[in-house]
């Protein structure tokens, strides 16, 4: 063959390049991934799963849940929200006039319309979110002006995107999957994303009912019933077991019978409840709402 060495070299470069890009580079980047630290604390993230939840991961895998469910929350952007919490000594009208005088500042010029619209409806009620911007320096500059005017404000960091806050409060990061083996990211959302399901739907009983009869709680659910993870058995001496599901008529078995979750169902639910993506991390920051205001 003519140019045999050149062909060999070209193939080597092509295969070696993809091996470096797809295998070596990710291994260098994330191969030694460790637990992350939750922001402003010394706690680590995530926690090791309980034995029950670890077994549940295999039930999730065996039943092909990842065919229709994803475990990844995507984030398109990030915004800083400046919320006015206290007026200090000034009256609402004075502060409003002061804020309107800021519109000429070059760093706030782009936000003038935004701010004007917010201020138009603002009658001095607190707390009021005055500014939402994707530029943190602008938000900080605005907060500094508020501080100079004697008012107090809080700047919150909010993750934004189509998945947020519908499926979670922040994006998924590598640390979230530290104890998943195998990692079941999924690629199709026939059902909802489950990356944060443990925080969204923390009721184990709801999860069991939903597995047994999906249409019970979600009328238009496309999920098949996972009845085979439950036992339908005769009540012993007419007494209901503590584990038995509390099913409404239409879903309940015949009189004298009860529906009891098998071990697999309990493990699967333990796994689902262990799926959380609700701690603020350095790599995916957001401001948790620590005090809910009435």
């Amino acid at each position, binding site marked *: 063959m003519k140019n045999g060495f050149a062909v060999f070299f070209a193939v080597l470069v092509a295969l070696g390049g993809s091996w470096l890009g797809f295998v070596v580079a990710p291994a260098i980047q*994330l191969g030694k991934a460790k637990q992350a630290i939750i*922001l402003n604390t010394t706690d680590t993230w995530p926690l090791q799963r309980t034995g029950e939840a670890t077994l549940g991961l295999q039930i999730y895998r065996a039943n092909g849940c990842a065919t229709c469910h994803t475990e990844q929350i995507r*984030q398109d952007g990030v915004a800083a929200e400046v919320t006015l919490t206290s007026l200090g000594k000034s009256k609402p009208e004075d502060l409003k006039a002061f804020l309107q005088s800021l519109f000429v500042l070059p760093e706030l010029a782009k936000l003038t319309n935004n701010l004007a619209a917010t201020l138009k409806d603002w009658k001095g009620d607190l707390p009021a979110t005055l500014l939402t911007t994707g530029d943190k320096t602008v938000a900080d500059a605005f907060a500094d002006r508020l501080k100079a005017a004697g008012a107090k404000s809080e700047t919150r960091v909010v993750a934004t995107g189509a998945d947020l806050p519908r499926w979670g409060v922040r994006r998924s990061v590598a640390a979230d999957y530290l104890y998943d083996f195998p990692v079941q990211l999924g690629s199709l959302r026939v059902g909802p994303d489950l990356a944060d399901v443990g925080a969204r739907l923390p009721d184990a009983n709801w999860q069991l009912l939903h597995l047994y009869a999906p249409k019970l709680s979600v009328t238009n659910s496309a999920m098949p019933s996972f009845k085979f993870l439950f036992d339908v058995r005769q009540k012993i001496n007419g007494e209901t077991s503590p584990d038995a599901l509390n099913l409404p008529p239409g879903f309940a078995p015949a009189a004298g019978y009860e529906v009891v979750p098998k071990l697999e169902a309990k493990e699967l639910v333990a796994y689902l409840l262990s799926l959380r993506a609700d701690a603020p991390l350095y790599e*995916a920051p957001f401001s948790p709402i620590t005090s809910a205001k009435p």
Partner: protein
Amino acid sequence: MSEDPSSCPAPNNAEPTATRSAAPMWIVVTTLTLLFLGFVFFDKHSGWFDAKIYAPYSSAEQLEAFQPISGAAAAAAQGKKVYEAVCGICHGADGMGKPGQAPPLAGSEWVLAKGVNRLAHIPLAGVSGTLSVEGKEWNLNMAAMGAALPDADLAAVLTYMRTAWGNKAGEVTADDIKKIRAEMKGTQPMSGDQLKTMPE
């Protein structure tokens, strides 16, 4: 019309051959330009493959800017900011001071004192004359650098001094500063001996 048969071209049945020739200049220039633009884009958006940088963040600075801080962490950040703008010019960003100009703050008994009264008087009134730090005499002339700072900022910067560079001492609150300011007798710069006449 007759032709010399010997002048006929030889039948061309030789194999065509490819020969080497230089690539056109425009291809080389376009490739290099695209490569350059690609690297500029990479530099701007990749975060240099840092495992901590995920979309939508494109650089470590941007990620750092969006870290939410509140409470004690916010005060520490403010203290550092004020320190670097006001105090760090002479005392150094590492708190080690400058020989012949400003004494060190790291490990200094003035900074680590139990009470903050004497410490707060230094930025509020200034220092003039001799003052010993860790057994070394300094002849100082420091203006009242902290007199114009708001109570909260001065408290934050003193707290920063007392907790940074291995220092371990209690925090200073804005109320402490307010009280010390109200009780201050004069604003004349003091020497070390004069400072020592005051309660800690």
